[in-house]
């Protein structure tokens, strides 16, 4: 009947049962012997038998007390076998560790409550029970599979930490179904315990490629006994920062930038005057704070800041005003250079104002009046083809080529890898370009860096300058310009005709001349981008270069091509960090926000077998740093923010869950002890508690009877 003793060593204490008997014997031996002639008065005492019975009863009680105490200390466990259960069972426990589990639940958090209940559940299991422990953070993870070391399992549960992930049950339930599906010739009772706050975002959302959670849970219910344990809080009100972005993704020193933070109130606040306080920090230093009334809905707060020196900055917004503090911060990691350099390569030289590149350079870096914020984040540098050898193209945000008669091989050797590795090139074709050189070296029958073969340079017909028409008017580079047939000023007198039929398949014509020929094309070469202007960048061939719209076009084109340089280091929980390794390294150490370290080894990816590091376990919010030598990685630090959906703590209560998720399952309330919830059939009952109560009763009975018997005899 008793399956085992949890603390069998204490059974030796049962020998203490003999103590009262030994004490009684010692006292008897030490009794004095007295001769009494009148002993007849003592004999035939009708009370004697009664007193002997009383003494015997007290002795029995006194022997029972150490017996019960020793038994209680040995912690006997009552096996479920006696109650019709079975020991042949496999128990699977899934603990929801998504960020919403950090919400307040009573005096603790939902996650702390879930761990406590899991530990109690494991403690109630008999020895040698097979248990699988899984967690759902930024993805479903098997912590321990089919282990029977319950002590180690309890310790593992107690050491678990909440993740900052936001995976869904639609990802987890199919894996759980596999765990509880009986294997061939296996006669095992499967039980599944899911400890969760039943957040709607976790349970109802179907992730891409995920299964229907309702259907899968129903199928699991056919295979196993399912217990859904509610550990959620009762007040799902939460403030959550859903976004923190700079107004301009290209941040440079000396330019005031505005950061916008979006704050949402999920749920309904207790009072109508609920307030949220937002604090803005740069590299951990408080730079400002604001307060808003926000009982429901959303609001935004903005902070402006001017970076004084180049470097990498961690921008942070922290909010206060709710009970779920885990999601009250959001980070933005920004690289802030002095400017984004643009290289303009040309054949000719001379004073800057006399060069062909002057107009383009002016468009890249318009002059800023003293006292005002700089207008452009770009800085132009002109270089002759003879100076190319000294240039490191990788430090430039874009490289512009003006038309040239001869293209040095050095230039090709630098330009092409630069583009294929993610660089951006803007090419201008004037009438002086050596078409043969360009076709041979830059087009190379479609294997080069320009989208189409140069056919011939032509002039505007009838001496009438051509106009520049936008054809892809939804393209971001034309956002600031009106979509129309032409610019209002300037005209194009000569243009380069391209072989439109032979152009690369993904080459896009963004603008055309008024004669219908392509004026501006965009193509992607490798990881980089190439923009081709089929015209010169300077008058008299192209008077558009003198128009006020030309700088706008160039600025927008550069912004578009540079894109969001900080996007790769600002991730959300669950996203994968990827970065090219610039210099070969055997391995690198990544330090996570919780100060744990992970070894990362670069791997060759792609057809070109380029080295890249990849990290998927972005389950914690905060700063990640890779310890690597300078130059190995372009951006060795990145931040991970929580997903917006986890901010909504709205949850399914028992009725809503039952109506949504039909099928066999048992709902366990937060206040219900796990042992009671699971039921006697499946749990091992520890008897030591009952035995201790029994001991207390025995002690009380012995004391009472000893007093009562002594009183009667006086």
């Amino acid at each position, binding site marked *: 009947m008793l399956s085992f003793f949890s603390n069998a060593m204490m059974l030796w204490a049962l020998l203490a049962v003999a103590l009262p008997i030994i004490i009684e014997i010692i*006292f*008897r031996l030490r*009794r*004095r*012997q*007295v*001769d*009494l*002639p*009148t*002993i*007849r*008065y*003592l*004999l035939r*005492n009708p*009370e*004697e038998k009664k*007193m002997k019975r009383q003494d015997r009863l007290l002795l029995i009680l006194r022997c029972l007390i150490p017996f019960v105490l020793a038994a209680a200390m040995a912690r006997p466990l009552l096996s479920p076998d006696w109650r019709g259960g079975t020991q042949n069972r496999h128990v699977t426990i899934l603990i929801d560790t998504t960020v919403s589990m950090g919400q307040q639940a009573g005096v603790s958090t939902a996650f702390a409550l879930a761990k406590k209940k899991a530990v109690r559940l494991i403690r109630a299991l008999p020895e040698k029970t097979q248990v699988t422990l899984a967690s759902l953070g930024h993805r479903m993870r098997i912590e321990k599979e089919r282990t029977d070391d319950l002590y180690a399992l309890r310790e593992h549960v107690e050491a678990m930490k909440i993740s900052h992930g936001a995976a869904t049950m639609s990802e987890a339930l199919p894996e759980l179904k596999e765990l509880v599906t009986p294997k061939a010739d296996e006669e095992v009772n499967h039980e599944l315990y899911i400890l969760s706050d039943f957040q709607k975002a976790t349970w109802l959302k179907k992730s891409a490629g995920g299964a229907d959670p309702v259907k899968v849970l129903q199928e699991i219910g056919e295979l196993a006994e399912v217990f859904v344990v509610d550990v959620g809080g009762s007040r799902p009100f939460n403030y959550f920062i859903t976004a923190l972005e700079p107004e301009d993704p290209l941040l440079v020193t000396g330019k005031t930038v505005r950061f916008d933070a979006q704050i949402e109130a999920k749920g309904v606040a207790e009072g109508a005057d609920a307030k949220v306080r937002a604090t803005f920090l740069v590299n951990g230093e408080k730079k400002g704070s604001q307060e808003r009334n926000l009982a429901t809905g959303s609001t935004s707060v903005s902070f402006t800041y001017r970076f004084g020196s180049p470097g990498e900055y961690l921008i942070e917004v922290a909010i206060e005003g709710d009970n779920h503090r885990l999601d009250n911060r959001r980070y933005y990691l920004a690289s802030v250079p002095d400017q984004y350099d643009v290289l303009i390569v040309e054949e000719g030289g001379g004073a800057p104002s006399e060069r062909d590149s002057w107009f383009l350079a002016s468009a890249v870096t318009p002059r800023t009046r003293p006292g005002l914020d700089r207008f452009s984040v770009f800085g132009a540098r002109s270089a002759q083809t003879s100076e190319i050898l000294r240039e490191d193209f990788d430090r430039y945000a874009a490289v512009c080529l003006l038309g040239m008669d001869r293209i040095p091989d050095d230039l090709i050797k630098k330009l092409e890898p630069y583009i294929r590795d993610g660089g951006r090139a803007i090419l201008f074709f004037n009438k002086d370009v050596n078409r043969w050189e360009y076709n041979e070296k830059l087009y190379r029958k479609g294997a080069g860096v320009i989208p189409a073969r140069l056919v011939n340079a032509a002039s505007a017909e009838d001496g009438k300058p051509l106009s520049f028409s936008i054809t892809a008017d939804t393209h971001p580079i034309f956002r600031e310009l009106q979509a129309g047939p032409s610019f209002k000023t300037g005209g194009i007198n000569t243009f380069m005709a391209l072989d439109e039929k032979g152009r690369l398949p993904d080459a896009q014509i963004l603008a055309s001349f008024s004669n219908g020929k392509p004026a501006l094309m965009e193509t992607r070469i490798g990881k980089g981008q190439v923009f081709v202007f089929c015209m010169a960048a300077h008058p008299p061939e192209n008077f558009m270069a003198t128009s006020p719209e030309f700088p706008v076009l160039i600025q927008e084109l550069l912004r578009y091509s540079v894109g969001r340089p900080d996007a790769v280091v600002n991730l959300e929980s669950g996203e994968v960090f990827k970065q090219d390794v610039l210099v070969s390294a055997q391995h690198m150490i990544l330090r996570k926000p919780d100060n744990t370290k992970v070894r990362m080894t670069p791997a060759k990816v792609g057809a070109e077998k380029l080295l890249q590091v990849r990290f998927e376990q972005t389950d914690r919010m905060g700063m990640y740093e890779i310890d690597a030598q300078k130059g190995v990685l372009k951006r060795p630090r990145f931040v991970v923010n929580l997903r917006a959906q986890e901010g909504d703590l709205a949850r399914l209560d028992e009725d809503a869950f039952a109506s949504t998720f039909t099928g066999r399952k048992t709902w366990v309330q937060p206040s219900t002890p796990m042992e009671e919830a699971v039921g006697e059939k499946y749990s091992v009952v520890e008897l030591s508690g009952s035995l201790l109560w029994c001991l207390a009763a025995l002690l009380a009975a012995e004391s009472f009877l000893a007093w009562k018997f002594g009183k009667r*005899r*006086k």
Partner: protein
Amino acid sequence: MAGVFDPKAIASIDHLDIKAQRLMEGFMLGNHRSPFRGVSTDFAEHRHYVPGDDTRHLDWKVYARADRFFVKKYEQDTNLKAWMLLDCSNSMFFKSEGALMSKYEYAATLLASISYKFYKQQDAIGLMLFDKDVVSMVPPKASFSQFKLMTDTMEKAKPGKDTALGEVIKKLGMQIKQRGMVILASDFLDDIDALSEGLSMLNFEGNEVVLLHIEDPLERSFDFNGQTVFRGLEGEGKLNCNPGDVKAHYLAQREEHIAGLYHACRMQGFFIEQLETSESLESTLPGILNTRSEVRT
């Protein structure tokens, strides 16, 4: 055993006469009333003259008054035969710390003192030692050597076997041929019914019986502490108990036994005195004799 002749005790009763309360049969003219009416100075009663009576006893004054003949009858004093019956069973040799001497010594000294008094009164004294049977017997005689023999016999006595008081008293009664005085000293630890039957045998013979109930102070108080194993002295066995638990019962049983004893004595018209071995004899003896005298008068 130390000598039973206690001068102090004897001195304490020296001034007292022990007179038998009942009519004794004696061959000598002594202090004790005789049931036989004979020559005596004490007038007892008249009866009608019948031919053959001694005319010296005619009461002429009555004849003068009544013109009828009556003879005088006189009470005849006689010598007493006193029997000392001493219990020498094992229980009598018990002595506790609070007692002056064992019950046997106490009883023996007491009886020796009384015997000496009888001797001085020229009464015949005899002795019987008994336990569950008669151990030794000294027939009554009125002489100093008799007294000496009695004291020697008492002094040499050893603890006997257990008591069967009722049976032995019957035997004692059968030994006493002549009516006399019987002084019985014992602790009377025997069945009351048997005792009563035995005592009635003594009364049937018309003896004057004085019972001296000897108790040890510890037997009276049962003042024991702590778990104790009590051992009986006459084969009753052992009892392991807490004295506090059984004291009430003990005292109740003792009271009942003594009450039964006293009732039996009252029924037979015997005098019984309760004595404790912690009380000195010189203070006890006069009290006993005075009490007898008061009862008599």
